[in-house]
């Protein structure tokens, strides 16, 4: 498996996670609509979106949730496990613009025999506004 495995002992509180950059296109939104079964027209029909007082088509909240999931499964690696993932939809994002997933380790601890790492995560737009903040907990392997 490609990618370097991170271990619990390697992680320090405050350490950055990511970034994972995405530049979703309208084509990606259509692919996500098909793959997820969410066919709400605000995600691919510009006229429909404009009629609903939106600036144009917007990203599915669930797609941003999936991007943040990718950030965390990349961080956890094959031997890790994403245990919790929470996101809040605060702002809209549109296709054709870059969005960046980032995070920071907030706490590391052992509980029930598991080595756990809590993280603050978010998706921000090109202006640095956190449109989709959240948190995550991963179980990491230990060298001991």
């Amino acid at each position: 498996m490609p990618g370097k495995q991170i271990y619990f002992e390697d992680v320090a509180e405050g350490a950055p996670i990511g970034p994972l950059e995405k530049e979703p296109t309208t084509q990606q939104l259509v692919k996500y609509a098909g793959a997820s079964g969410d066919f709400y027209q605000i995600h691919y029909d510009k006229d429909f979106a404009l009629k609903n007082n939106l600036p144009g088509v917007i990203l599915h909240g669930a797609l941003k949730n999936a991007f943040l999931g990718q950030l965390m499964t990349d961080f956890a690696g094959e031997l890790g496990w994403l245990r919790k993932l929470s996101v809040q939809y605060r702002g809209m994002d549109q296709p054709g613009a870059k969005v960046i997933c980032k995070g920071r380790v907030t706490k590391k601890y052992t509980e029930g025999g598991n080595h756990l790492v809590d993280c603050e995560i978010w998706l921000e737009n090109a202006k640095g506004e956190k449109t989709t903040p959240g948190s995550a907990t991963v179980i990491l392997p230990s060298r001991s």
Partner: protein
Amino acid sequence: MANKYVTDEVRKQIGKTAEPRTYEVERGAIRRFAEAVGDPNPLFNNEVAARHSRFGGIIAPPTFYRSMMAAFPEVKLEMPGNRGLDGGSDWEFFEPVRPGDRITVQTKIADIRESEGRLGAMVFTTIETSYTNQHGQLCALQRATGIRY
């Protein structure tokens, strides 16, 4: 302060479930989902590489559960404004999902509460969705909060 809209009668709906639905997980659906997200992780895309992992084969990305649409219990609630917001969602993951798994999805009303916000009364409805595999193992739980105001 007494609730305007979330009366004892409304709160009696907490715990109400919708009928479960069962989905068989297709390998191609997992790959298409990972492709749509743009996630090249071999665990989700590459059977040969995934076979050498601790999972012994392909697993689904964490939010793949989104593709398994649940039936929702109707929340009976009288409110003057009927504007809604998707507040976000909280996931907990317990077991991996593999091609061929049969996942049963069931929702219940976990909470209905009211608070006075900047825009007047707001009602927060939390729906909990459980995803259980054919072995009876709870694979994931999702709690999503919708806001009405």
